[in-house]
């Protein structure tokens, strides 16, 4: 192996996550989810609400322990590793939440928010050092001049500025991996792009890898063009591969349906789009996931006896794409 090749940084192996919903019933939110992210790589998780993308993000960030399966950071299983390794993992992986109005403590000034982790993890030895580092962090996220922001409370900042503070907070421990959970979804379009460009710059300058979670495939395409996209449906990854392949040549019927359903900010393109018609509009409940391929009640290509039998596994299709569809296995999916 050449030294040029990026090392695997974080991976999930056959992760299952179940939550208790009543004394007897459990709901399986993630079912056999595996993926890995290399250093400096971008992996986008896309899918509709309830597909398990946020849970996957929380598991990757170590905020949730999976029911079964492994989370590995630099090859080590983090939940069986010793304390020092676990601490290293928690420092190396940080999360940016969706809602900058809820994720910052309203009673703390920007300086307190950012210096707490610096002092706690002894990255800064004293308050004065922390102050300097906070100023640097604010410059990194383009909150300039930083002196203007350091004494402010979150309510004195706009949504975009707050999200920059959240990003700065995620950067305090100099992580190698950031989980960005719908990090730009709540922001207005005119400032969304500048935030995405900031995240991109952090990757170029600091080599940060991303697990970028979004429901917006156009944002995924823009942000992860050089990376990969994983499409999730009802707790499983149904298709994963290089972004241009997923966007321009989707294999799974669900991915095709999503892409064809999305309206676009281009009147000609959006009005002339070929639509995939689903057999049902109802999303099945996670308490009662359909047998076999969980997409089969809605899938336009459904074949009785095949799709409602066995659960399809991810298998290699063309151009580095993996897809979990029985019809694709038999190469019956023709465009």
């Amino acid at each position: 192996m050449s030294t040029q090749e990026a090392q695997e940084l974080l991976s999930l192996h056959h992760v299952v996550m179940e939550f208790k919903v009543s004394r007897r019933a459990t709901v399986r939110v993630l079912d056999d989810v595996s993926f890995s992210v290399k250093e400096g790589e971008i992996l986008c998780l896309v899918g509709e609400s309830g597909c398990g993308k946020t849970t996957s993000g929380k598991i990757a960030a170590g905020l949730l322990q999976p029911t079964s399966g492994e989370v590995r950071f630099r090859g080590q299983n983090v939940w069986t590793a010793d304390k020092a390794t676990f601490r290293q993992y928690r420092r190396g992986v940080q999360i940016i939440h969706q809602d900058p109005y809820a994720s910052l403590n309203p009673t703390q000034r920007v300086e307190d928010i950012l210096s707490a982790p610096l002092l706690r993890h002894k990255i800064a030895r004293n308050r004065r050092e922390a102050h300097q580092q906070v100023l640097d962090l604010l410059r990194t996220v383009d909150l300039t001049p930083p002196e203007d922001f350091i004494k402010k409370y979150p309510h004195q900042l706009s949504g975009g500025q707050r999200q920059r503070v959240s990003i700065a907070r995620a950067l305090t421990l100099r992580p190698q991996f950031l989980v960005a959970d719908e990090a730009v979804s709540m922001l207005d379009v005119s400032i969304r792009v500048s935030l995405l460009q900031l995240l991109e710059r952090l990757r170029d300058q600091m080599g940060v890898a991303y697990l970028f979670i979004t429901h917006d495939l156009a944002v995924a395409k823009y942000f992860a063009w050089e990376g990969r996209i994983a499409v999730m449906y009802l707790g499983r990854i149904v298709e994963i591969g290089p972004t241009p392949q997923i966007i321009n040549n989707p294999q799974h019927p669900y991915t095709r349906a999503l892409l064809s359903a999305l309206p676009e900010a281009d009147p000609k393109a959006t009005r002339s789009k070929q639509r995939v018609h689903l057999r049902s509009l109802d999303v099945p409940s996670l308490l009662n996931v359909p047998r076999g391929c969980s997409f089969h009640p809605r899938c336009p290509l459904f074949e009785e006896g095949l799709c409602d039998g066995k659960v399809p596994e991810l298998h290699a299709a063309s151009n580095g794409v993996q897809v979990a569809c029985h019809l694709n296995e038999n190469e019956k999916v023709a465009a």
Partner: protein
Amino acid sequence: MAEATQTPYTLKVENLRVSYQAERGKVKAVRDVSFTLQKGETLAFIGESGCGKTTLGLSLIRLLPTTAAIEQGKIIYHHNGEEFDIVNLSEKQLRRFRWREFAMIFQGAQNAFNPVLRIWDQFWETARAHGETNKRHLRERVEETFRLVQLDPDRVLRAYPHQLSGGMRQRVLIALGLLLKPPLVLLDEPTTALDILTQRSVIDVLRDLKSQMSFSLILISHDLSLAAELADRVATMYAGTLVEIATVWDAYYRPLHPYTAGLIRAVPTLSGERQDLVSIPGSPPDLISPPTGCAFHPRCPYATDQCRQNTPTLIEAEPNHMVACWHWDEVAADGGARMKEQVEA
């Protein structure tokens, strides 16, 4: 056509000004907005949060909160040869006017229903308030509208709101809004918070309805792709003012206002290669003391002293293309390219 000289309109708004009373002062949420909604057309209002588009919608149907007031302006409603100013309607007149003539479908379909009433009872209450006395007659009409929005009446009418999915609730709400066949409908963010496939079904339903029932539609949305999909004309709002009104084609392919040009270049698309995007520097202004001159000047790469001192008015720069910008000709000439340069600089 006999009336070829004058296109029939549904709504004509003139110099509308709406303000909120806040502790720090008056928030000028809608500032001298004028536009005409043609009969049967879909006019989309786009703009970012806080630009005044929802306030504008609420004032059109006179549902502003008590802290807000219409300070000046006219909202002329026209239907079947009758014409009146909505601003002057009394509460009693408004009660009859709303829903029958002008239905508003709000964002957040989960909050629009009474949670302890079955869907049928919500329809019955609404219809009864507007003079319906015959349940069988109503049932027929409900079934007809449910077919249009692709809902199963037997199942849905017996359900409580919480038993329906978000997309179904949104479609029920659309059906409820259209129940009395109003000539004018206002939709505020109809697909926000819906999943992609559900959003598609709502968009398709709206398009079908438009082709089958001829109502005029005002669409309020921050989502430029929704406007691209449904609108005939697009109105861009910024800081409480209307800065551009154009056909959907001109708005997306030949915007004359730098802000519209910037917004359109800020949204990623799915088709084709990955394109470069633009972000508009700065943030929207404080509406208590908006900037002098053109409110967009602090963020605009085309701004000159003229923009800082004088407020541009909405003029017909090109046929059927209104814009409020001193430098629209420069934007037209370079296709809004300067919005992009600024980011790279």
